[in-house]
């Protein structure tokens, strides 16, 4: 299929673009296979380059022969195009509709994108499981890397290499996999250096209604316990949801078969509910005519903040079991690809200072989300504006980012990155020129041969100028565990995403620049000057002594 067939009218003159906080621009609208471009053909005027993949929904309106297209983007921005001529407008609209909803993966932009920057370090090779395991090996000998899943046959959503207890052989893993949802047998997620406790994650056990058990599964997870110690199983679902899962072949670990484990149920919602929540929240944020009462009641009704609180609370619980109780933890929900990953990754942010650095956070996203098989493509194919019925869409990763932002806001000096980094990740999960978030698992990514055919987002992020842009000026390495407050009074709406296009951030940006200025002036300029002078003075003093 050629893109040209889909583009009925490739260009229209005299189009007026209106968007938040920027002056109105009149110019020529061009449609290409992947972009909607508006150019005024004048210097110094910002042009619009919008990926079709970023378009969530469009609306058409006509007044006489003047057509208007409202473009609603997945990054929650809304822009307006006034197009003279009814036919042109209809053609443009139908082309955008088709181009923004292409199903064929091979036509996606990352396969066509050629980087305009020099790749210093190939992001596809930056975070290999082998390298991560080397760090683990330096701390403990109790774990090994297994390639039982090398052809993705044991678990289609796991990577080829996973860390498992040393004493458990591959055969046991295979049998345990058959007992877990999606073949997701318990694997290592995090090793807590301080006390040697671990966090594992998996899918739900397939106990079914008649309480099936699996000795290999029990052996596998018991192998992670120290003699005489108990562990915690954190089930991200409520007891009743977990009970209901039995009818569909799922279930939870019974006390009888797992006597060394204490099970705790939490209440993180399923993904379809999260999507509804996002839609309601964005709707509330977009209506500026609300009174205070109406705004607060809509915010409450969206339940978004409740999800944030629930996820953070569960992550704190996992971290607490490990750090405070000195116990190992197994986390799972139903599939083990959504709420499970929110919990395991946030617990690591709390426990492990390395995850709060720019590189470390990328490694975390790579390890706990991409390698761990979070289905990014399914979850992020539509955002809050789409009119089509959601299938598997859910803002699971966005909620994780929101939770990280909450911790970042409470500990503004403990993260090497600023919220810009989190916003950037949000944007790229929904629409990107990079291949990083394509596909639903390691196996899909490898079939698409993404590492050869596309550029990694990390190649872009890890260039010095980008690292500097994403850095937090207040950062001072903090080796401690950081316990965020999960009280509702401490959790705020993430303005950087949800109000980004609603209210100007000029004053807040200025404050940020001022902060950077204060610190840089102190750290760089002044320190250097003083050090130089100190040196000079020392020299003068030695000379003086020599003269004496």
């Amino acid at each position, binding site marked *: 299929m050629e893109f040209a067939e889909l583009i009925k009218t490739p260009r229209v003159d005299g189009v007026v673009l209106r968007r938040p906080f920027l002056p109105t621009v009149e110019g020529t609208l061009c449609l290409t296979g992947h972009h909607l471009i508006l150019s005024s053909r004048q210097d110094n005027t910002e042009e619009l380059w919008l990926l079709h993949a970023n378009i969530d929904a469009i609306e058409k309106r006509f007044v006489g022969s003047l057509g208007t297209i409202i473009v609603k983007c997945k990054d929650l921005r809304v822009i307006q195009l006034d197009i003279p001529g009814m036919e042109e407008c209809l053609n443009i609209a139908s082309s955008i509709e088709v181009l923004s909803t292409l199903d064929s993966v091979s036509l996606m932009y990352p396969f066509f994108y050629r980087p305009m920057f020099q790749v210093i370090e190939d992001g596809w090779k930056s975070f290999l499981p082998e390298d991560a395991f080397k760090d683990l090996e330096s701390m403990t000998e109790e774990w090994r890397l297994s390639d039982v899943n090398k052809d993705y046959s044991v678990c289609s959503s796991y990577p080829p290499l996973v860390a498992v207890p040393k004493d458990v052989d591959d055969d046991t893993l295979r049998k345990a996999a058959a007992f877990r949802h999606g073949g997701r047998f318990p694997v290592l997620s995090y090793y807590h250096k301080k006390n040697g406790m671990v966090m594992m994650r998996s899918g739900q056990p397939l106990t079914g209604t008649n309480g099936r058990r699996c000795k290999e599964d029990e052996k596998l997870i018991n192998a992670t316990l120290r003699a005489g110690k108990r562990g915690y199983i954190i089930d991200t679902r409520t007891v009743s949801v977990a009970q209901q899962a039995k009818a569909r072949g799922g279930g939870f670990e019974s006390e009888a078969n797992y006597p060394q484990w204490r099970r705790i149920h939490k209440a993180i919602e399923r993904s379809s509910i999260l999507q509804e929540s996002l839609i309601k929240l964005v709707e509330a944020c977009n209506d500026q005519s609300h009174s205070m009462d109406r705004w607060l009641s809509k915010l409450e009704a969206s339940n978004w*903040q409740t999800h944030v609180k629930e996820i953070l609370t569960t992550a704190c619980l996992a971290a607490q079991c490990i750090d405070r109780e000195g116990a190992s933890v197994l986390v799972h929900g139903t599939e083990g690809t959504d709420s499970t990953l929110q919990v395991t990754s946030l617990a690591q942010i709390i426990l492990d200072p390395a995850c709060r650095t720019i590189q470390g956070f990328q490694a975390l996203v790579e390890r706990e989300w991409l390698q761990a098989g979070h289905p990014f493509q399914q979850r992020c194919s539509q955002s809050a504006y789409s009119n089509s019925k959601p299938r598997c869409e859910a803002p699971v990763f966005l909620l994780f980012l929101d939770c990280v932002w909450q911790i970042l806001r409470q500990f503004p000096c403990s993260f090497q990155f600023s919220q810009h980094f989190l916003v950037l990740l949000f944007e790229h999960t929904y629409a990107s020129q990079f291949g990083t978030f394509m596909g639903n698992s390691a196996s899909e990514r490898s079939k698409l041969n993404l590492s050869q055919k596309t550029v990694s987002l990390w190649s872009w992020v890890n260039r010095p100028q980008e690292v500097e842009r994403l850095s937090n000026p207040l950062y*001072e390495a903090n080796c401690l565990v950081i316990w965020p407050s999960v009280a509702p009074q401490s959790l705020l709406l993430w303005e950087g995403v949800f109000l980004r296009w609603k209210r100007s951030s000029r004053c807040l940006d200025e*404050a940020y620049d*001022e902060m950077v200025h204060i*610190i840089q002036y*102190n750290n760089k300029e002044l320190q250097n000057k003083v050090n130089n002078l100190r040196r000079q003075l020392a020299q003068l003093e030695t000379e003086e002594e020599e003269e004496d």
Partner: protein
Amino acid sequence: FLNETVENVRLIDRTAPRKAMVGTLYLSATHTIFVENNPETRRETWVLHSMVASVERPPTTPSGSHLVVHTKNFQVVQLLIPQERDAMDVQASLARLSRPEKYSELYCLSINPNANKEEREESWSFLDLQADYRRMGVPNNLWVSTPANSEYRVCDTYPSELFVPKSATPPVIVGSSKFRSRGPSDPFFSQAAICRCSQPLSGFSARSQEDEQMLEAIMKSNPGSDYIYVVDTRPKLNAMANRAAGKGYENEDHYANIKLQFIGIENIHVMRNSQQKISDVGELKTPSMGDFLWGLESSGWLKHIKAVLDAGVFIAKAVAEEGISVVVHCSDGWDRTAQACSVASVLLEPYYRTMKGLMLLIERDWVSFGHKFSHRYNHLEGDPKEVSPVIDQFLECVWQLSEQFPCAFEFNERFLVQLHRHVYSCQYGNFLGNSQKERRDMGLRERTHSLWPQLWKDRAQYANPLYRADHTQTQGILRPNTTPYCFKMWKGMYNRVEKSSPPRQTPTDLLTAVREETQQLEEELTNHQEVAPGGTAQPGTKQGIQTRSRNAPNERCSLRPIYKFINVSLLITIN
């Protein structure tokens, strides 16, 4: 006169009830003091009696009697006293001590005024209201000072010095003031002016020629404009209801060239209940997100804050953008009017966004213009229906603004919290009484100290490190966004109790520390530069360098954490 001491008292940390400090409780004439037994820390917690809002005693438990002390600035101290008898005694004493019946029992009047006579006299000359009027450019050829109220004969809740339009003759001033309990006068002046007054005694049909002439004169004092705004800060319904009592609002048919605007700030009773609710929300122990948001909504507090800010925005826009003078009133002209005028001043004038400027603004719009501090802030045992958080709302508006304009204010949140505290504390004489006249009659300047120089002395801890007088954000008028989602609950006021490990980091403290370090480095730089060219280091300079180099780069880390974590002890000690 009283010295109760109770031993083996537990001070309970509300966030971690099991971690209680054991110590001794002392009741002095002015403070409740808890001293921890632990000989290493001996942490002290002081509560000024005048800050105590209530003392509750839940049913006795086997381990003893609890006392829950709520302070007027929304902190909670929970004590566990082994003997019920002692708990009852302490409760009774505190109830008496926290509700004085006479001014003379208040802290600021209980100390000898002549111990530091010079300092006291100096403290009262710290702020100069005259200078502020001069800074605004009054008097001038359009506005003059009137002697009409020099002995508080025209209006005993106004200051003795008032500015009025030059064209307003004495009969007009007196006539206008009779038609209102508080005639129009001018607190803010640029080209267009903001004037304030109380509601007119219009009823359904009454009118006053002098009052009409007065408003006409105000309009004429702004050459080039052909109308003025009359801002009635009340909801229109309330204003209409007042007509039945012979009061009300201006009839646009009688006053030529006025545009009447209602803003809809609720009355003091609504605000009092609303604040009670928001402080309950802040104290909820383990609320769900739904509980919290529902509580926030049903308290109505943020809605009221928005209304006050909207009033200020309307006035500021009229004056700065349309060049139209505004006459502001509510019912009496000392609550909502003070809020609206002072918020407008903060929006309009960068000076009022500095520490000294805000002090002056409070001194002018609140203290001198007869805000009833002692009634509103419950200084003495009195009518609970007179109590209302009027200035709390003004301070919160300033806080909400500082969240939107982080570089525009010279002070930080702590400054506002401290101001709020002192409005209630009565440690200084500034806010006693209900009008300038009352304060003069009490002889407060002779008997108490003024708060302002004390705050000024501590200004380093109240400074906003992001403030720069030459910053674009600092200049000119502020245009805040008042969409509901721009308002947040003021956690620093209503939800202060929270402990965590490691302690919360605040950018303000970190930046302040960096700023200080920068200053030290700059000094060192100057010293080095003085030394370097000559080649011979003076002994004195050398000395200076040595002491300063303690903060040399390799040891810098030790400097900063101290500042970052300083909050812990501040949170606990309420003195």
